[in-house]
């Protein structure tokens, strides 16, 4: 009974989106979508055409994918580590903690479009090579956008503890470091994943948008822009699809890691 219920919910969870996706692609390929959206196959090329372009340009696309993913991952890592450190500092100094986090969140509300030129200016002396300068600026943008989600969520994980658990640690005469490793850190692990669910897609978007403003022309986001500028819509679409795939794959990896770590190691759901 329970098993059949599980199977049924699995079918609804995976089956429905798949069916919707298939219907969308079918209407797109048959031209029905163009009629609905009142557009033509030049602005919105057929899926098969996009796939063909992706195949033809696979080497060039992979070069740009590498550049974008590198920026997204390094920025995500730096931002998450910094965000967690900020959360720890806020926990250690509770008086200033929540205020400090509000500032970090406010900083995060500044649009990437506004941040990117500032960071490009900051990093202009980092290296003589344009590619490296641009890379640093892009990573900085992603770092800032990933930092806020992690610091706010990790702070919750470090401070919203099970009732009496702090008292329990006190009765064991546990020091602050012991309390951190035995109680606060494990308690914060699910919150780290909550933050990553926001910051992983955010890091991809951050990387793509920051490429628009970078000095050195590389990356999936930049290629979308460059191709639209020269009215190569089919190629632009090939990069748009690539960007979607990057986002989906990174999110899928996160979900997999979350289910393995939370269920197997910490036995949580």
């Amino acid at each position, binding site marked *: 009974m329970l098993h059949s219920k599980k199977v049924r919910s699995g079918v609804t969870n995976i089956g429905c989106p798949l069916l919707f996706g298939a219907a969308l692609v079918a209407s797109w390929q048959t031209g029905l979508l163009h009629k609905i959206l009142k557009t033509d196959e030049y602005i919105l090329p057929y899926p098969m055409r996009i796939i063909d372009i992706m195949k033809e340009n696979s080497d060039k696309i992979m070069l740009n994918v590498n550049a974008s993913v590198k920026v997204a991952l390094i920025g995500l890592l730096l931002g998450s580590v910094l965000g967690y450190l900020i959360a720890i500092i806020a926990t250690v100094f509770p008086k200033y903690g929540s205020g400090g986090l509000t500032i970090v969140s406010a900083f995060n509300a500044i649009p990437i479009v506004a941040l990117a030129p500032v960071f490009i200016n900051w990093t202009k002396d980092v290296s003589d090579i344009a590619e490296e300068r641009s890379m640093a600026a892009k990573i900085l943008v992603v770092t800032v956008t990933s930092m806020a989600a992690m610091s706010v969520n990790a702070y919750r994980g470090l401070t919203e503890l099970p009732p*009496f658990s702090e008292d329990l640690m006190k009765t064991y*005469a546990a020091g602050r470091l012991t309390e951190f490793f*035995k*109680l606060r850190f494990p308690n914060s692990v699910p919150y780290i994943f909550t933050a990553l669910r926001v910051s992983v897609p955010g890091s991809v978007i951050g990387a793509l948008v920051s490429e628009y403003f970078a000095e050195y022309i590389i990356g999936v986001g930049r290629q979308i822009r460059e191709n639209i500028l020269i009215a190569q819509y089919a190629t632009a679409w090939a990069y748009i699809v690539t960007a979607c795939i990057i986002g989906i794959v990174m999110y899928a990896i996160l979900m997999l890691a979350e289910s393995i770590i939370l269920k197997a190691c910490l036995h*949580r759901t």
Partner: protein
Amino acid sequence: MIFIVLFCFISFPEQRNINELKGTISMIEHERNDIEIMLDNVGMVYDSADGKEVTALTSVTMDIHKGEFISLLGPSGCGKTTLLRIIADLIHPTSGNVLIGGVSPKDARLKRRYGMVFQSATLYDWRTVIKNIELPLEITHCPKKERHERAMKMLDLVGLSDFADHYPRQLSGGMQQRVGIARALALQPEILLMDEPFSALDEFTREKLHVDLLKIWRKTNKTIIFVTHNIQESVFLSDRICVLSPHPGRLSAIIDVDLPRPRTMDIKDTPEFTALVSKVRNSFEGV
């Protein structure tokens, strides 16, 4: 030179000796009287949110003997949990003195002389049952093998050996609280402080745990301070009941429970038990 040496001999050692002597005398008194916990005029005044002073507890004076089962009984707001938390050094009294085995509550806490059981089991849901019991032993750097053996012994004491590798959420509320008791006993403390540990459990589970707790107490010989608002519970379990009354929180009576031990559930049907329950009920003031 001679003067300085003489000065050192005469003044400083003397001062130190007197302090040491005072400490020794209080220690000897404690040992001779078999007193584990001494409360002298303990009071607690809070500052409320609107800046007014709220008296949570006023002038509590009493001694608790080694191996005794004491209940702190009273309605909400009588300061019973406050008193327990003062003994546990989780809060500091605003007046009076507390001595635990001749030392301050803080020293007793740092020496890990008591284990505490809270209203909820407070188990870490990312640790298995056995790992939860091992937690205090990990903190005190007990070797891994010994840690496991001691934790298993405690688990056996509370009758949950078969559940060592389960996670807390796979256990019932009563079982979780038994794990909490096992964890509190893991460091082999002299005192067990229990803050309404069974209040969230159903009547059937609670009665079973009462009998279990008395068995554990008999086997381990701990001093137990048990906070409760349930009169029958306190009469069934305790050697003495400290009745606390509210507004302001104060000790209004100490009642000896001279029912024979070991106690079983049948004792609740005896006229002696009923008489004690009404005696305790009548001792409340201003409720």
